């Protein structure tokens, strides 16, 4: 079975660092068409414009050709074809498969039936490892290191898959975590136990401003309305977890704000022009990180 990237656990600490190193080289020189003649399949069983464009840009910059579909409506899936058969077919055509699918665990299953590497571009609420690697790359770029940083995660810490994957990836680098969330959306017990077992400390608060001045990376997430039973509670929480420029006065100068995007109202637009805002550059970093992942899984070193 060829090496795939399905879950952040699939990469060791050394492999993660290697990907970041390759991403930096691609950023320094994005014109490296080392995958000329290769075919990359982007198969998206549910639409995700942002992720798909980022992956397709990465594959294009590497010189690969792209086949695929951006939603399953007009494919044989709508005729009742099993996922296994679709993957078997596509892996006959392409050298690598990038897949997004609404079912959790679908990417792991695909990697077991595919003859070529699979990159998980999101399997339901489960994993989205390229997002985590681009988050790591953004943290490294802005702080010059990954170790001993104060990481403040804000918003939906209960359901947010990006924060859970980032927490696991960062746990290699002895961070101090802050979890800023309302009662309904607190970091689940299993992740806190995981940190304790690794000897990593964390603190929790409901107040966004409480540890803001003591933070290197402020990782904001979207608070989604469908998580709340009570619409009044949602309105309250939505406003409490909204960052604006005036709150940034006492921050560390190196503090950077990350957000997996799309944002709604958790970051006010007056923050965009602040030197602390980094979420748009973060999205740009995604292309270099994905170039690194694709090249690495196809055995190309730079």
């Amino acid at each position: 079975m060829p090496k795939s990237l399905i879950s952040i656990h699939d990469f060791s600490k050394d492999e993660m660092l290697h990907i970041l190193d390759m991403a930096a080289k691609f950023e320094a020189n994005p014109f490296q068409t080392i995958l000329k003649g290769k075919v990359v399949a982007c198969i998206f069983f549910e639409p995700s414009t942002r992720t798909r464009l980022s992956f397709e840009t990465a594959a294009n910059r590497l010189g690969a050709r792209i086949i695929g579909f951006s939603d399953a409506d007009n494919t044989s899936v709508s005729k009742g074809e099993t996922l296994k058969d679709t993957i078997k077919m596509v892996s006959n055509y392409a050298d690598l498969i990038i897949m997004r699918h609404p079912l959790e665990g679908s990417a792991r299953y695909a990697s077991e039936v595919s003859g070529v590497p699979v990159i998980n571009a999101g399997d339901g609420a489960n994993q989205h490892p390229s997002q985590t690697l681009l988050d790591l790359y953004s943290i490294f770029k802005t702080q010059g290191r990954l170790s001993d940083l104060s990481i403040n995660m804000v918003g939906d810490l209960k359901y947010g898959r990006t924060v859970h994957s980032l927490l696991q990836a960062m746990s290699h680098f002895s961070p101090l975590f802050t979890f800023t969330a309302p009662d309904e959306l607190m970091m689940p017990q299993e992740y806190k136990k995981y940190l304790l077992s690794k000897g990593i400390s964390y603190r929790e608060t409901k107040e966004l401003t409480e540890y803001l001045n003591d933070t290197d990376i402020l990782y904001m997430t979207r608070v989604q309305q469908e998580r709340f039973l009570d619409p009044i509670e949602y309105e309250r929480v939505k406003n409490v977890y909204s960052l604006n420029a005036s709150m940034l006065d006492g921050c560390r100068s190196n503090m950077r704000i990350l957000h997996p995007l799309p944002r709604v109202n958790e970051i006010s637009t007056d923050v965009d022009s602040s030197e602390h805002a980094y979420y748009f550059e973060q999205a740009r970093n995604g292309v270099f990180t994905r170039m690194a992942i694709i090249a690495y899984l196809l055995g190309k070193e730079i």
Partner: protein
Amino acid sequence: MEKHLKVSAIKNGTVLDHIPAEQLFNVIDILRLYTIDKQVTFGTNLESKLLGKKAIIKISDKWFKDDEINKIALIAPQAKINIIKDFEVVEKKVITIPETIRGIVKCMNPMCVTNHQPVTTIFTTIAVEPEIQLLCHYCEKITDNKNLKIISNY
């Protein structure tokens, strides 16, 4: 005074005792006892000091491999396995929950691929005490005691 056996003794074979009464048919299902051509006798809702109501299964001329019999530990952790030779118990086996469980258990996550595509479930046992916790190889979610459902072979 000799005790009258509710399920009559067998000469050679395997006796599965102390099965929770409500799990009897799941045990039969997991061990696929309906596929064997040997004599199978069972009783259920029998009195038990340990379980309240228990079931017992006696299978003549049949012996199980450890990894086969261990599968029932998920639903009958206190089951006792007695190996019978010439009407005597020659060996008592303790069952343990396997580290990896293929098939048998349904993933409790309704969005897991195993509940929508023809995929055999695979779990890693991550805890046994105070309750069983199984980690799904595919969706990475935990199925615990309270949500443990057996996939029928029928």
